[in-house]
């Protein structure tokens, strides 16, 4: 890659090296009416990269529901914003940092967290929570993937360790609690881990800021860290092409994070905004100074003129090309009101940060870049930002897999003791407690955390000065999306919303991070299109419009794509923080109830019993139990009924506001048995005794992962009221057992005791498996 001075004559070959195709380069020449110089070429190449331009995804993203009565700002700004009542708004967004985290796990993860935090405080919102949705290759030998080599497993552990340390280091120092997310393991993530970071912030509605430059002559101010040569082409090339064997050479393309500077930047920006002298502000993330100047000008319908000679620089001899493309972290660009720049500069001086007037808002719609007075780039901002290439890439559904019933999970005989299999499931990295990871995160700073990771189905933070709290959950099942993209995507939305409802919150809005392979492959684009349709259907049905997020393509190494992995974050509001629900059982003697939003299935007759078993086997083959215990990954995700999901969520909310529940926990990975066990693990010294009756095979009933279900526990005196309320909501409520004081976890199924073990023994397995796996 040429990063030399402006004397280089730009040719079609150099354009191609910059990732611009021949038609794209022709369009550049057309917009300029001439050949670009090397700096201009660099600017076009980053702005029109997949990462910045969404050129392959744009046509599909239009199908997502983005409007709703609570949506203040949908996609297109630094973050989505929703009204949460009491004159407050929440800004939230999830973003990927996958490629950098593979090349350099620690720095990749830190800068992922740093980037998303800046997106939030750029809006004028103070960050109050971080969630991280992480996916790695196997960290233990997996029955379903026996071919994964020992050195790959060892490498996956190192990547995990680096990413966890990175996430922890940034959030802990910055002083925002990291309170949730997920950690998943699949072989497809060995060569391409996923690091998706979500941040949430709050602001007064009238204090929101936007990234629209306006007011000709208003000064453009550069603030924060100095510009260096790090991260040049980080987003544009690293994140916009697949990995090859040479990818480790891209380590210099990874940015380096400094949470301390970001903390100062946060405090200084919020203080500067409070002066009233700031007109617009945007962070410098992907494509740095290029993207921030271009987008602010384009959104405001103005031009911007800057002089690079004034940009604070960490090293000498940087070319205009390098300065414009640097992705040095912890920098912001803001537009101030003319004449009031001293007020702004004073604030940054107090916090010990560089703040320099580097240019001004100009008429004419041009991005004009000078270097010590001499023009080095001149490009119409709007076409640069908005008229980049848009592709409707070919879509081809893959040939249906030849599946036979032999691929499917074969259920054990009815009287088989399943305790050992249950223990294996609890020990699998997917199900085992993530406490070893989340203990490395500061989950409590800012003293708002009402539900630390593992305490409830969603992370919950209160809003001081109000009675309110916010709940957030992320979800995404790549394995299910691989088996059926549309259905998998719907499940991701449904489960995240269900988690939020199980914490007592009303789901109001969503953010999404779409992780995929190469868009140049028709099969990948088919997955993408299907997933967009699934997300659209589920978000519409559950009334959670999508307010923003990002798309990460090219998650593949040496031609192998990851599972299509949409990660959905759902935000919910709890009007009264006293109604927050947690997942742990509370009192011995409480009644355990299974809530099911699905209307009772038709009774099974003898003739259809075999067909039912076959259907169940097909569905069950995609479960975590099937993967961990039998080594089978096949079939289909469970069927979904969004109306049933909605009924269940509304029932949970009604129950939460009536304050009649002791606990609530949804059914997801590992099914009913895991849900029940986790509710015991969160309750010291309690046990649970369940008596279940059903006509399905025991494994299917205990470990099946069909949605729209949750387990609640209640005081016996509340039973009648709760059954009545559930009926009113069209939700089946079945008494399935009791919380006990004997510390024994037991399940009787159709009259036989199939699981019986002390909670302590199960907890020991569940609590320490992950740590043991990593220390091997």
């Amino acid at each position: 890659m040429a990063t030399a001075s402006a004397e280089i004559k730009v040719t079609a070959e150099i354009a191609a090296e910059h990732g611009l195709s021949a038609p794209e380069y022709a369009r550049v020449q057309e917009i300029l009416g001439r050949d670009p110089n090397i700096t201009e070429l660099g600017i076009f190449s980053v702005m029109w990269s997949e990462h910045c331009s969404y050129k392959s995804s744009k046509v599909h993203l239009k199908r997502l529901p983005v409007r709703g009565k609570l949506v203040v700002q949908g996609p297109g700004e630094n973050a989505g914003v929703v009204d949460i009542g009491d004159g407050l708004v929440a800004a939230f967004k999830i973003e990927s940092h996958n490629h950098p985290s593979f090349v350099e796990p620690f720095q990749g993860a830190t800068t992922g967290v740093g980037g998303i935090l800046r997106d939030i405080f750029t809006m004028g919102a103070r960050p109050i929570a971080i969630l991280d949705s992480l996916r790695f290759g196997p960290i233990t030998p997996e029955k379903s993937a026996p071919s994964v080599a020992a050195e790959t497993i060892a490498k996956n552990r190192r990547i995990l360790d680096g990413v966890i340390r990175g996430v922890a280091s940034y959030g802990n120092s910055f002083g925002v609690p990291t309170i949730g997310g997920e950690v998943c393991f699949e072989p497809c993530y060995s060569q391409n881990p996923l690091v998706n970071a979500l941040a949430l912030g709050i602001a007064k509605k009238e204090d929101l800021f936007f990234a629209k430059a306006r007011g000709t002559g208003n000064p453009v101010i550069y603030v924060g860290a100095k510009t260096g040569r790090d991260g040049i082409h980080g987003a544009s090339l690293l994140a916009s092409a697949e990995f090859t064997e040479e990818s480790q050479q891209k380590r210099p393309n990874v940015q380096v994070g400094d949470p301390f500077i970001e903390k100062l930047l946060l405090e200084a920006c919020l203080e500067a905004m409070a002066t009233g002298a700031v007109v617009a502000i945007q962070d410098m993330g992907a494509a740095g100074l290029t993207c921030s100047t271009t987008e602010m000008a384009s959104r405001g319908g103005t031009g911007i003129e800057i002089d690079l000679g004034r940009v604070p620089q960490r090293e000498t001899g940087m070319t205009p090309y390098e300065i414009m493309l640097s992705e040095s972290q912890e920098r912001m660009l803001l537009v101030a009101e003319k004449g009031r720049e001293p007020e702004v500069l004073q604030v940054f001086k107090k916090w010990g940060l560089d703040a320099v007037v580097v240019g001004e808002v100009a008429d004419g719609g041009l991005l004009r870049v000078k270097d010590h007075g001499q023009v080095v780039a001149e490009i119409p901002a709007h076409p640069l930002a908005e008229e980049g290439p848009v592709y409707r890439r070919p879509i081809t559904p893959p040939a249906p897999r030849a599946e036979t019933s032999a691929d499917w999970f074969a259920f054990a005989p009815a009287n088989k003791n399943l305790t050992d299999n249950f223990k294996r499931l609890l020990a699998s990295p997917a199900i085992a407690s993530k406490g070893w990871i989340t203990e490395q995160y500061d989950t409590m700073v800012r003293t708002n955390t009402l539900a630390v990771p593992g305490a409830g189905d969603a992370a919950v933070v209160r809003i001081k000065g109000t009675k309110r709290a916010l709940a957030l959950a992320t979800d995404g099942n790549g394995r299910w999306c691989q088996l059926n993209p549309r259905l998998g995507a719907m499940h991701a939305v449904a489960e995240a919303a269900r988690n939020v409802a199980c914490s007592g919150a009303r789901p109001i809005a969503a953010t999404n991070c779409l992780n995929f392979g190469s868009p140049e492959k028709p099969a990948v684009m088919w997955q993408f299109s299907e997933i967009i349709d699934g997300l659209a259907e589920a978000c519409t049905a559950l009334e959670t419009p999508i307010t923003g997020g990002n798309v990460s393509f090219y998650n593949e190494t040496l031609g192998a794509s990851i599972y299509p992995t949409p990660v959905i974050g759902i935000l919910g509001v709890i009007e009264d923080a006293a109604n927050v629900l947690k997942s742990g059982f509370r009192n011995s003697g409480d009644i355990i109830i299974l809530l099911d939003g699905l209307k009772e299935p038709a009774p099974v007759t003898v003739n259809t019993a075999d067909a039912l078993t076959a259907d169940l086997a097909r569905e069950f083959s995609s479960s975590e139990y099937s993967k961990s215990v039998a080594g089978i990954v096949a079939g289909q995700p469970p069927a979904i009924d969004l109306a049933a999901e909605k009924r269940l969520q509304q029932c949970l909310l009604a129950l939460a506001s009536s304050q009649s529940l002791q606990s609530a926990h949804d059914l997801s990975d590992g099914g009913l048995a895991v849900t029940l066990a986790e509710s015991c693990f969160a309750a010291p010294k309690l046990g649970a005794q369940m008596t279940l009756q059903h006509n399905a095979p025991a494994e299917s009933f205990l470990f099946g992962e069909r949605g729209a279900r949750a387990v609640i526990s209640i005081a016996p005196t509340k039973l009648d009221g709760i059954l009545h309320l559930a009926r009113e909501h069209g939700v089946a409520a079945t008494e399935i057992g009791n919380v006990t004081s004997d510390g024994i976890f037991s399940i009787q199924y159709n009259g036989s005791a199939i699981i019986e073990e002390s909670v302590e023994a199960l907890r020991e397995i569940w609590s320490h498996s992950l740590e043991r796996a990593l220390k091997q």
Partner: protein
Amino acid sequence: MKFGVVVFPGSNCDHDAFYAISEVLHQPVEFIWHQSEDLANSDVIILPGGFAHGDYLRTGAIARFSPVMKPVEKFAKSGGLVLGICNGFQILLEAGLLPGAMMRNVGLRYICRHVYIRVEDTATPFTHAAKKGQILKIPIAHNEGNYTCDPETLAQLRKNDQIVFRYTTADGSDDAAGNPNGSMDNIAGICNRERNVAGMMPHPERAVESALDSADGLVIFRSLVETFMTSAKATA
């Protein structure tokens, strides 16, 4: 009685301490910027948790040179009440206002969780309202909380009852099982010989409301208020 919470660049528990004092304890409190030359007439100074100046060197090593540390030192030496929490404790060690030093946690990882500490001594302004031997559930959140000192210092700390808190298990045993970070003698907090300066790694300001899972940290703030009120009365 007025509290002053010092804000270093990189402090991040300053707001939490402020909130606990003003909203839960209902006492006057003011932030004091690290470049300040005076302490705003505070009766108690809190050095809060966080990563002062980024803590890229040894924790607290830069913060001790912040201008505010001069008046803090003068205040401490004249008997003023100073409480360092987490990073604040580390800064007090670096400033020489408390003896000893911090090493990285055993296991070399950041740890954030609720732990149990035992009140070892109630003859301090920080524990006056607690009962001797009382077990408090209070969170820790740190990378470097593994307290160490030379044997003579440890002997002095023991002899002069300067060990204010020890890590224990939930039922009060101060063995390795109760020690989250490898700290010498399970030390979670100490005071100076004059008993007016204390440092502790656990965060009492994070344990002041039952909604946050524990209100056990309140007793420390209440002790400070009571001590001050009593001494004010005595002076009057």
